[in-house]
């Protein structure tokens, strides 16, 4: 009986070997995948097992961590002025995951990033608890406050950029939410989350980065830039446009808000009074291809604009002639995020050079060593220096003598453009009030470019216009940016 016995022994050995192979497969080959699987609760447990690093504005942390009990998770995220900073920080919730800076810099904040390996090892040897690094933002607390308070309880968004570097100074969205309200995993947190998620006003939507709007008349800045760059027009030469413009290949006509100033107006006058007829004609003359090219130089059509939080793609699509003419005044299917329109203003203010917007100045280790410092980057040069100077003069005329007078700041150079974007079927809905602008302080050399959009303002329809509703917000944001 020994021969079959030996075979059975070999068979049992094979069973054991099969087990050993299998164990090696899941614990060695597949281990990383299993360890980091989204359903593996250990990931979340580990994430909240130590106080998280902070997101910092100026030199103050706008986040914190507090110890919790009664669950797997030891620490909970807290936010100072949650609704004010939510569009910047995003949220980190024990139950609902994380987004925006909290998610993108999770490795640094939890201390798991490979670049913190050395710190972690030292901490382990010296027996210290694991600590996360910090994320230092480029934001300016005063600008952010001015933006958020300026919006008040109206729906809308503000984006503010330093034109010289591209550093984002303000990023406000209203209505907002408090990420602290669902940072834990209690029933109350779930209830708050569900309420926010179902809210028809979408408080968790980051309108400054992630929502696109019809840009309305603020888009005339892009059209004007395209006209100047084409070399066929100059800012103080008559354009030859009629008072009422008949759209090409169409019987529809386009009139102007301010009467009697637009016929044969110059580029400067047409921007000053926001002449639809002039800019629709210019857009048609430049052509769809030219308009697309110019808007893309300003950052439209970039689906991967990472600040590092990715901004939604602003678009100027291919359109037929009548639509393209309407696109020139921002009333066709072209759409832009508030950040995108702030970029337009910033490129003009920065003498034609568009800087890539960013909101993380640097990542620092728990021991305060810099891990990564963001260097300002040129994204493109949509305008020549000379044409940019002309655009500045035109935009300054808008503020000094035109529709944007509400944004005037004494002692500072301010350029701007109003916009009122119709929307809804047959334009029945309340329009969006836009204002884009920049301000430079000759004394302190400070600069700021701002875009403001206010949705469905609850005021009387006639009063809703970029100049009336959005410009005062832009003004207070610019004043904060200039340190006034």
């Amino acid at each position: 009986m020994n021969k079959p016995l030996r075979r059975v022994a070999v068979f049992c050995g094979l069973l054991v070997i099969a087990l050993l192979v299998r164990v090696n497969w899941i614990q060695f080959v597949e281990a990383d995948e299993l360890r980091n699987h989204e359903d593996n609760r250990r990931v979340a447990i580990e994430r909240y097992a130590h106080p998280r690093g902070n997101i910092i504005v100026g030199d103050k942390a706008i986040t914190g961590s507090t110890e919790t009990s009664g669950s797997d998770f030891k620490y909970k995220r807290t936010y100072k002025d949650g609704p004010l900073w939510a569009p910047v920080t995003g949220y980190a919730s024990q139950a609902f995951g994380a987004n925006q800076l909290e998610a993108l810099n999770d490795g640094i904040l939890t201390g798991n990033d490979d670049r913190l390996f050395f710190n972690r090892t030292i901490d382990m040897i010296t027996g210290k608890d694991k600590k996360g690094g910090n994320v230092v933002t480029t934001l300016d607390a005063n600008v952010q406050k001015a933006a958020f308070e300026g919006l008040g309880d109206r729906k809308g968004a503000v984006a503010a950029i330093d034109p010289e570097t591209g550093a984002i100074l303000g990023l406000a969205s209203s209505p907002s939410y408090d990420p602290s309200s669902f940072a834990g995993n209690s029933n109350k947190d779930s209830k708050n989350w569900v309420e926010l998620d179902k809210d028809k006003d979408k408080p968790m939507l980051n309108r400054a980065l992630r929502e696109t709007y019809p840009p309305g008349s603020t888009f005339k800045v892009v059209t004007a830039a395209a006209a100047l760059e084409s070399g066929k027009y100059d800012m103080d030469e008559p354009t030859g446009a009629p008072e009422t413009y008949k759209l090409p290949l169409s019987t529809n006509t386009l009139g102007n808000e301010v009467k009697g100033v637009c016929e044969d107006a110059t580029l400067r006058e047409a921007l000053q009074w926001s002449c639809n007829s002039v800019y629709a004609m210019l857009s048609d003359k430049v052509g769809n291809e030219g308009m697309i090219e110019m808007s893309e130089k300003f950052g439209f059509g970039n689906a991967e604009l990472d600040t590092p939080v990715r901004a939604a793609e602003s678009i100027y699509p291919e359109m037929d002639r009548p639509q393209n003419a309407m696109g020139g005044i921002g009333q066709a299917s072209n759409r832009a995020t508030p950040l995108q329109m702030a970029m337009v203003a910033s490129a003009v203010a920065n003498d034609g050079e568009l800087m890539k917007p960013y909101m993380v100045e640097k990542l620092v280790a728990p021991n305060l060593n810099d891990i990564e410092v963001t260097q300002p980057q040129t994204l493109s040069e949509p305008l020549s220096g000379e044409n940019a100077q002309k655009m500045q003069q035109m935009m300054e005329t808008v503020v000094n003598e035109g529709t944007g007078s509400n944004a005037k700041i004494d002692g500072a150079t301010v350029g701007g453009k109003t916009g009122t974007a119709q929307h809804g079927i047959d334009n029945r809905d309340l329009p969006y009030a836009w204002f884009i602008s920049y301000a430079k302080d000759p004394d302190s050399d400070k600069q700021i470019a701002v875009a403001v959009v206010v949705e469905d303002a609850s005021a009387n329809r006639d009063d809703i216009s970029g100049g009336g509703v959005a410009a005062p917000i832009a003004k207070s944001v610019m004043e904060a940016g200039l340190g006034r």
Partner: protein
Amino acid sequence: MSSSHTSTISSVAAPSRRNTELAMLVFAVLIPVFAYINVGLAKEDTVPAGVFGYAAGLGCLAAVAHLVVRKFAPYSDPLLLPIATLLNGLGLVLIWRLDQEPSLTTPTLGGPMAPGQLMWSAVGVGLFVVVLLFLKDHRVLQRYTYISMAAALVLLIMPMVPGLGANVNGARIWIRIPGLGSLQPGEFAKIVIAVFFAGYLMVKRDALALASRRFMGLYLPRGRDLGPILVIWGLSLMILVFETDLGTSLLFFGLFVIMLYVATERTSWIVFGLLLSALGAVSVTSFNSHIGDRVDNWLNPLARSPVNDGVTETAQAMYSFGSGGLFGSGLGQGFSRLIGGIATKSDYILATVGEELGLTGLMAIVVLYGLLIERGMRTALAARDPFGKLLAVGLSGAFALQCFVVAGGVTALIPLTGMTMPFLAQGGSSVIANWALIAILLRISDTARRPAPAPAPSPDAEMTQVVRT
């Protein structure tokens, strides 16, 4: 193969290896004690208060077992007892460690399990001692061939009896004994049925092997030879299928095929067995939803539960293994409690091993089981009588199949079937039955290695000397 010396009767006493066994037993006790301290340090930052009681308890059990072996089975295999002790000790530590998790120690889940397990281990070692004391020669068991058959059937039917049986986690394999707790008769049936198979096959092996007709290239035995065993086997399978205990039916079937193969030396049994088991597996899987679910879980271990979109136990176990990685999180520092429920301490205990001791620790445990199994096989090889050979191969084969089915199920190598990892997992019946199994193996190996009485000195020896001049 140089195994001849183990099966040859020699008048020269083989080394008894009892001191080797003692030295290894010291490690087998020390390792779990250090593991126990390790858990305490990880969980509470102090050496746990119970460590002396635990060390004394495990040490006592090991000492008693060793002394009994030294006295009553002096030539038995030196590896079996230390490995069983080590596995039992580690199992106790793991259960105690899981008792520290509040979510696993709620009153509905039965509270802390480690004290009970220690008690059952003591009962198991008690049975071990009883077997070695009273079973002077394993061949005595041959007399009980048909009683074993009846006993196995009774044990298997018991969970089906209304009022006595209990349905736990979808399988009806438990009986409740008032005042004592619940018992899994299948664990004992495993030993008893091996005794029956060994006794029956030893008598009928020649008839089964030789008096057969050739059919399609296979040798099929006559019905009257195979009949009884086929009936018993079929009955046990039927019962187990009704109890939806696929693991145990697989074990019994495998046991049957292995023993038949060894007894008759005919490979056709293997082919036959594989065909039948494939047929059985397919039909059971398609008819039984409980088992069908497990097959689904096995094919997609990480998929979420179709019922409530929750993370399944299978997936949780996989995450445990993956998170453990090469070296594990350290005892007491893992999160295998996420598997939840009562199975964490029994069926899924290997997941805790994998997570907290890592690939290294889990491989060590698997290798320990492998060693135990192969020592059992070696005992079968060394045994001098066919009954001993068959019984040893049956017992170690059953043990091997059980280890493979449980470990393979937990690691999603094969579909999960509810069985306990011998010695390691929580479960009184399992610990007791496996200690008895080890005792029988020790008895067989003792008989095999015991030297024959020295032959009487021959007076003619002098006369036959070659005289050289």
